[in-house]
């Protein structure tokens, strides 16, 4: 049996490929859910509902060959009980260069013992509009990251109290 095609076959047309996902730095943390849906080309988000927060979760806008479908969402937007977005977390399939996210002149480095015997280190970058960008790293020399969190700087104390103290001290020292 041969293949009978009903629609027009176009030869030699370069296939458009996957839709590029937005960049983490493109978010202002003021996006309403409807704006996010548009930014992800109409992808319907997974919504996590808890009494004190809501999350909208999106996959990267690529074919399933290129992302894990087992519950890991590339993009997670956290809204608290006020309805205001507090953070966006990007979990990347492909890493991003640290130099593009945390230019040396803008980069702060902090570390803390999070559990007995476990030390966590983060790169932090202040951004306009009450925002900070945060990535966990294993070394100050890290060159790529696969996760970045953009959070309201005014909210850091609620989710990462130790980092809020470090940022406050840094702010005081820089005056």
């Amino acid at each position: 049996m041969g293949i009978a095609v009903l629609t027009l076959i176009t030869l030699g047309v370069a296939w458009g490929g996957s839709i590029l996902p937005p960049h983490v730095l493109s978010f202002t943390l003021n996006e309403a859910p409807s704006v996010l849906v548009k930014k992800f080309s109409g992808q319907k988000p997974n919504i996590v509902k808890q009494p004190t927060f809501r999350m909208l979760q999106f996959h990267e806008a690529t074919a399933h060959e290129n992302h894990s479908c087992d519950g890991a969402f590339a993009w997670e937007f956290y809204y608290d009980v006020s309805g205001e977005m507090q953070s966006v977390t990007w979990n990347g399939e492909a890493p991003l260069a640290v130099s593009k996210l945390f230019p040396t002149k803008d980069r702060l480095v902090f570390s803390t013992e999070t559990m007995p015997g476990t030390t966590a280190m983060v790169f932090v970058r202040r951004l306009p509009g009450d925002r900070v960008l945060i990535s966990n790293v294993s070394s100050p020399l890290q060159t790529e990251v696969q996760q970045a969190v953009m959070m309201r700087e005014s909210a850091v104390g609620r989710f990462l109290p130790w980092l809020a103290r470090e940022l406050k001290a840094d702010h005081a020292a820089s005056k």
Partner: protein
Amino acid sequence: MLQRNCVLSLAIALTSLSAFGQNLQILLPERTRLLQDQRVDLVVEVRNAPSAAGLRVTANGTDISARFEGPTQIDLDCNGTTDAVYRANLYGFNTVGNVRVIATLGSAESIKDVTVQPFSPAAGARRKNVILYIGDAMGTAYRDAARLVARSVDTVPGVSGLREGYFDNLLEMDKMPVSGMAMTFASDRLVPDSANTASTWSTGNKIMFNAMGVFPDGTDCAWRAAGRNATTLASLLDNPRLETLWEYLKRRYEYKTGIVTTADVTDATPAGEATHTGHRETRAAITLQYLENPMLAGQPAFDVILGGGIEQFEADKRADRRDLLAEFRAKGFTYATTATEMNAVPASAGRLLGLFRRGNGAALNSSGIRATPDGNMDVAYDKLGLTRPGSEPVVNFNGFTDQPFLDRMTQKAIDILSGPNGDQPFIMMVEAASIDKQSHPNHAAGTIWDTIELDKAVGVGRAWAGRRANNDTLLLVSADHDQSMHIIGVVDVSDEDLFDRTNFQLSMTSPGAGAQTARIFKDAYTNVRAGYNYANPSDAGNTSGREGPPVETFVNFTEINGFPDYLDSNGDGYPENRAQGGRGRRRLSVGFRTGNHTGSVVPVTAEGPGALLFTGYYDQGDIMRKTAAALSSDTTAMDNMLRQINENPNYPKVVGK
């Protein structure tokens, strides 16, 4: 319109949350069901109380307050308030029946009812074994597809094994005498994942999406908002834990325990048997819990661990720099990295760690909580050296060319867990992981042949159990959840077309979607993918963001009469998916609606002591409780009744069993 309503209701719901004010909460779900002495962390959260001192907790009137530590000051819900938590870790209810737990603090009160199922095997009673087989995503259609491919081969040369609508020889899992259906919902979501489902069948309780062996708590907001990483790890691991059946049997009755999988061994399905974390991504912590299990006083959770995922054990790919390969060996584990090495391990080894794959380019993820990518084993279709259809990717073994098949892994695990004399009681889980992993990107061949691989492993277990002098081994076959593959029909496709890797582009214009371009391969008739502007608007080729018409609009699909005629030239149980002498062209056509999980019920088949318990429709958590009942009670009467049903010549026989 749907999208707009969705986001509006989100805004409304958030506004109403400002009235939330419960100040005392026992962190147990509404329908908590436990076995007698099944350990659970009893956690009481105190919010908005001026003083958190003076908590009183009773269980059916008995004061158990002294078991609680606290109050520990903490910020619950990440809202800047000072709250408190009390914990009674690893608490077991010995009273059978309904237990009412009441927590009071001042005028605040929280009440939770717990149902406790007895587990008291008769003294001296022979311990029974359990082998739970999980085809990841293996819903009904996946079993059907494996049957149609594997059992349409000739049973007599020149005589098809599927004639006039009957099979000569059904699958091993089809031959099990009892079947039922299980509902797989998470506690917070209709469509589940492998983590909450594995935790549900191992703990007997509904678990939230992505979580493993824990209930939600008030610090989850930290890792929800700030990502899952080394910085938030403490909030991922502080959730109330619930003991699994594997841990319970090892702790109370010295069962040997095992996990056998073709996935990374720290992936959700194997991990669900003995780990406790708010999210399945905490692979480094999961690996550590395999070595130092918190329910087992820091002893290893398993005696046999077989699968992929070397990277999670390697010091240079762990943030804590621990060499877990060395530490497992120090605890008496024999370590194997190839099928050859595994086959040489004697039954007397006692403990075996077999890791047969590392992810290509594996490294410590910058999150600090895992290595990526996953070191899943390669799929059966590729291990067999078969040629992939044109739309499915060609494998890169990356040097791992001696990986065992699931049936050999299963046999080895049984040999070691049952001990040199075969009298050591054990419980093990065997998973064919890539039924799911191949189904996500709609790779039909990879999916179907992995299901056949699982069935061969079922055959190993059935054969071993059948040789036992006593009916002492319960075999179960099920799935964690379903995916969307369905049986479309039969098509005639030449090898030339099936394996042609030259794609051609199709353009179409549809109302609303506009001009779209899709890439089609000639294997499209055997594999009707979701990804042609169908259910996933974000998939490649659809630039409109809208759903388009299904692939049948692009490709004129014509089904033919008759049945598949796959060939198994070397008789190894795996058809070669090749035509020869004019035969082998009639191939199964399957279709996919999406690349995601679904919320459909999944089949459960059972054989052995207590198998009759598994008939009917029930919740996935009932698998654990039914298994516990089978292990702890005398099932002779029901086993005899089942035997009479199957062996009575007056009752109809199933063709092919």
